[in-house]
């Protein structure tokens, strides 16, 4: 009798433990939201389920997702980067102008751009750790400075607001293949950015969940003082996170350049918020210490489905921003509620 009740109790406990573990997954809210949005558009939009449409959706998601991954890691580490959107444009401009001005192989520009973009990331990180100003202020400053430099340098060097085409330059086909090609898999067009995106999600998840660096990121975002007290290099972790965002900006920037072969210098403003929205919808806690890379991918997917789904459903695209805002609020509330439940259920 006693053994039987103990058994039942044990079983009930096991159930509640695994249920709690599921509920405490940061990406749960966004997955529920993504399934709902998918069902809505599958019903409302003719052809949403067609392979070519899904491919378009995935492409739109990947361009956001590539940046949402490092932005999510940074947010888990407790910081923001408002310069992330324009840094993508800066990276593309540096690459394009370096190659054009030196009449060099485009890979020279790609390499210079990588170093310069990482330097901006490091600058953000150092400024933050040295001055101890809030990252909101520091990166708002670099956001404005980069916006001005993008326009200023482009006009100074090219005379207009866009760069000159580099499509006829040496190395362009290879760079196009790496950053902006379209593969055909089973008769369906798959943009190469989708592969970049998936690879980044996999690497970031590995780092966050299975490496010492990941433990440090969670700790620095969760309680920086406690982390410092047990010997975690807090400043180094923060600088590395900003350089991660810069790496994402470099990949996105090269995609921007090699898919159109010219770059508009005013682009990118406002995108930094979209990356942050994707990360938050994906379950990243805005105060740091909690979140996942997979969640940021689901957040980006939600963004891609909504922006393209509205077109497929032939709704007025003006409503897109409204849906985005509503989704952000709902996802945040759901995540908040789920975490409260998970922590209360001991």
């Amino acid at each position, binding site marked *: 009798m006693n053994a039987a009740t103990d058994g039942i109790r044990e079983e009930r*406990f096991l159930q509640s*433990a695994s249920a*709690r*573990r599921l509920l*405490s997954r940061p990406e749960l809210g966004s997955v529920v939201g993504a399934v709902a949005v998918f069902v809505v558009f599958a019903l409302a939009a003719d052809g949403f389920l067609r392979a070519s449409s899904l491919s378009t959706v995935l492409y739109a998601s990947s361009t956001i997702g590539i940046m949402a991954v490092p932005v999510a890691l940074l947010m888990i580490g407790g910081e923001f980067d408002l310069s992330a959107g324009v840094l993508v444009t800066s990276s593309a401009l540096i690459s394009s102008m370096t190659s054009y001005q030196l009449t060099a192989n485009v890979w020279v520009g790609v390499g210079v751009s990588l170093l310069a973009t990482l330097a901006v990331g490091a600058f953000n990180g150092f400024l933050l750790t040295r001055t101890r100003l809030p990252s909101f202020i520091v990166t708002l400053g670099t956001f404005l400075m980069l916006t001005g430099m993008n326009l200023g340098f482009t006009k100074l060097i090219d005379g207009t607001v866009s760069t000159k085409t580099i499509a006829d330059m040496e190395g362009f086909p290879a760079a196009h293949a790496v950053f902006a090609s379209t593969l055909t898999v089973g008769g369906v067009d798959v943009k190469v950015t989708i592969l970049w995106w998936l690879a980044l999600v996999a690497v970031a998840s*590995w780092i966050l969940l*299975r*490496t*010492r660096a*990941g*433990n440090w990121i*969670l*700790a620095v975002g*969760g*309680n920086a*003082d*406690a*982390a410092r*007290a*047990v*010997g*975690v290099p807090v400043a180094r972790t923060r600088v590395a996170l900003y350089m991660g965002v810069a790496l994402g900006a470099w990949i996105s920037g090269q995609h921007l350049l090699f898919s159109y072969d010219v770059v508009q210098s005013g682009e990118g403003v406002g995108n930094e918020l979209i990356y942050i929205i994707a990360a938050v919808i994906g379950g990243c*806690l805005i105060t740091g*210490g*909690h979140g996942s890379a997979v969640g940021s991918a689901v957040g980006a997917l939600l963004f891609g489905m909504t922006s393209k789904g509205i077109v497929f459903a032939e709704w007025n695209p003006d409503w897109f921003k409204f849906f985005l805002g509503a989704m952000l609020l709902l996802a945040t509330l759901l995540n908040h509620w789920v975490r409260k439940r998970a*922590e209360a259920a*001991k």
Partner: protein
Amino acid sequence: MTLVELTGVSKHYGSVRALDGVSLEVHAGEITCVLGDNGAGKSTLIKIIAGLHQHDGGVLRLDGEETRLSSPREALDRGIATVHQDLAVVPLMPVWRNFFLGSEPRKGAGPFKRLDVDFMRRTTRAELLRLGIDLRDVDQPIGTLSGGERQCVAIARAVYFGAKVLILDEPTAALGVKQSGMVLKYVAAARDEGLGVVLITHNPHHAYLVGDRFVLLKRGTTVGHHTRDRITLEELTHQMAGGSELEALSHELGGRDRG
């Protein structure tokens, strides 16, 4: 074996005398209680043993060797672990991640060097169990544990990472009766593991439950130094509460107890 020995140790902050001629011994497998009211110099005393401050008079000996600790890191390296009152943990992180934070064990090589997660989970559970705390799920965020349980995790962590001396700063100050009892049980378990424990408290009842030696501080000086067999709880409480001062106060308040 005497692990830590302070002889006539003094500390001044400018012209303020925080400690004056304080002596104390910490033996392996024993609990030394430091008792005193607020401002008696308890914090200064543990800061000297923990390497946060340096003494400017008297002698500090570790394992019989005269020494001076220049940093908390040096104290840690010499086997002195301190569990501070405002216990530092990362609330949203699982217990096992907190347990190993800053000293994570890894396996594999090159880019596949990774946390030894199984070992970390298993060890956290086993180490907590060894002190008698049965945590069913080491994956729960440490913030969901009670204050007493968090103290115990910190104690288990110090034991695991090879501390010989464990300094506990008011571990029961913010806890209720039941939680305090639990923490004291784990303090005793750490002692049974062979650690020398320094227990800072202003509660003579808690001190007498587990203590082997009692050092009473008052305004930076030692007012009493007793071993367990030389003092009763009544005497300890009496001295701790200010002894004659309390009698004077009782008299001033009208002496209602005496009728």
